[in-house]
């Protein structure tokens, strides 16, 4: 039992420690990226290029007074940020960072919670993500937070539909749920140079998944829940200092998990990038490390894409947002599924 526990803690340290460590960096990239897009400088006072600015924010959050307003339902009010953080951490257990490697005689699986669930596990835990928001909106006992949390939740569940329809099309093509198998099937290559990534099999599905990811993680142009203009600050209005920081952290973790899933399903996950292949041939033991690096690099590109879209596209109105979800993406998802099925049946 002890050996198993140590193995789990080691895996959690890598699979969970890296994203938690990277969050201040992402906050910094977001601020500098916004500044870069708007041709201004962005934070560069604290440390070299302002790299310690997010750390200063963390310290600020730690030292701010924990204000619990009198009118809130205290137990649920405290529970909401903790529950949101736990629901944001859970999907990381299903994300494989490299191939199962042989440690001595034993085959070690890289993901923390190894089971036959595979993609289902990650998808189901992200589906539970909207409860923290609902409880936060309800416990704050404030008109605007309640409206904000209901709207955020209605948006997240509408886009979950198109997410699951694209997943059906992907399972139809890959025929399996295990993420290692899916990534292995993406390792071959069309006519020599083009890798057989999911995006070339399912271009429309990839677009649908991308839009659904933006909506699921409440990122612009879908962040109407925290729309500063109408709803003051949406569901985390009555929260301050560290409780607000937990919501902030959960949102970034949610974003990382969804982009990791996106990369694993459509962009070949931890398959080695072209350059790494040479190094791995020299040192065969370093294969897991370089696979993790290529996955890390692809997710970093996805995060930059999140920041880039955030500062270049205006926010949707609520009815546009819901109409897009229900009346544009869902029919597109159904059509994409029909075409894929009939094409494979007709060809195969």
């Amino acid at each position: 039992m002890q050996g198993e526990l140590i193995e789990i803690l080691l895996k959690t340290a890598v699979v969970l420690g890296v994203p938690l460590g990277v969050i201040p960096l992402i906050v910094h990239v977001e601020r500098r990226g916004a500044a870069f897009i708007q041709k201004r400088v962005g934070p560069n006072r604290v440390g070299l290029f302002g790299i310690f600015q997010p750390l200063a924010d963390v310290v600020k959050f730690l030292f701010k007074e924990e204000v619990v307003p009198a009118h809130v339902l205290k137990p649920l009010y405290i529970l909401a940020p903790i529950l949101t953080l736990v629901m944001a951490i859970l999907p990381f257990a299903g994300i494989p960072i490299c191939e199962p490697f042989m440690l001595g005689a034993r085959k070690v699986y890289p993901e923390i919670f190894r089971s036959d669930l595979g993609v289902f596990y990650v998808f189901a835990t992200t589906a539970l993500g909207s409860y923290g928001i609902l409880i936060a909106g309800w416990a704050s006992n404030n008109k605007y937070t309640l409206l904000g949390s209901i709207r955020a939740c209605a948006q997240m569940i509408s886009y979950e539909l198109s997410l699951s329809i694209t997943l059906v099309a992907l399972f139809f093509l890959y025929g399996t749920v295990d993420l290692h198998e899916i990534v292995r099937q993406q390792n071959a290559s069309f006519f020599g140079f083009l890798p057989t990534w999911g995006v070339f099999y399912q271009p429309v599905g990839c677009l649908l998944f991308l839009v659904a990811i933006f909506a699921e993680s409440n990122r612009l142009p879908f962040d109407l829940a925290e729309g500063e203009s109408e709803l003051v600050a949406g569901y985390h209005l009555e929260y301050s200092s560290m409780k607000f920081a937990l919501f902030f952290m959960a949102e970034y973790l949610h974003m990382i998990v969804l982009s990791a899933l996106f990369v694993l399903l459509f962009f070949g996950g931890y398959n080695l990038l072209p350059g790494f292949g040479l190094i791995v041939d020299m040192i065969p033991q370093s294969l897991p490390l370089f696979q993790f690096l290529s996955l890390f690099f692809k997710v970093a590109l996805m995060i930059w894409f999140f920041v880039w879209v955030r500062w270049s596209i205006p926010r949707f109105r609520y009815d546009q947002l819901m109409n897009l979800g229900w009346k544009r993406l869902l029919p597109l998802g159904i059509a994409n599924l029909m075409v894929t099925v009939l094409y494979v049946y007709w060809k195969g």
Partner: protein
Amino acid sequence: MGLNEYIDIFLAVFTGFFSLIVVFGRNPVVCALSLLMSFIGFAGIFFQLGSVFLTTIQVLVYAGAIAILFIFVLMLINTSHYKYSQTKKSINPVLGTIFTFILLGGFTLVINNNIDYLNVDRLPTTSMKVLFVDLFNKYLLPFELATVLILVAIVASVVISNKRGEK
């Protein structure tokens, strides 16, 4: 009493505790949230029993959709005046509890008599593929009828929700 038994006991206590809150809770929203936690407990139990696909459906449909719907309704209905709902005498508390205890006694007797037959694990872990092949060969008709049932539910809920008068 290896690790598996401890996890079994933990899941049973977890689900039982939250189901008690569902039945004896005061505030309906707290009841709905504890129902969500008991659904997650059920999903854990299905995983312990080795049926992986049931865990997925339980989390996706029950914990991910039905519980959200209950919480939405409880948020939509102005529950502030529910507080004094408890003062109204409920319809049949004594009769209900007596009947339930008799039923509980009956069930425990049934289970106790043939616990040795029931306690044997004749189906360790059913892989998803075995389950689905059955689903599409033996249970094809119920599968298609279930879709018709969902269609009826869609039409019914849309009609009920916005009555013509309100259009």
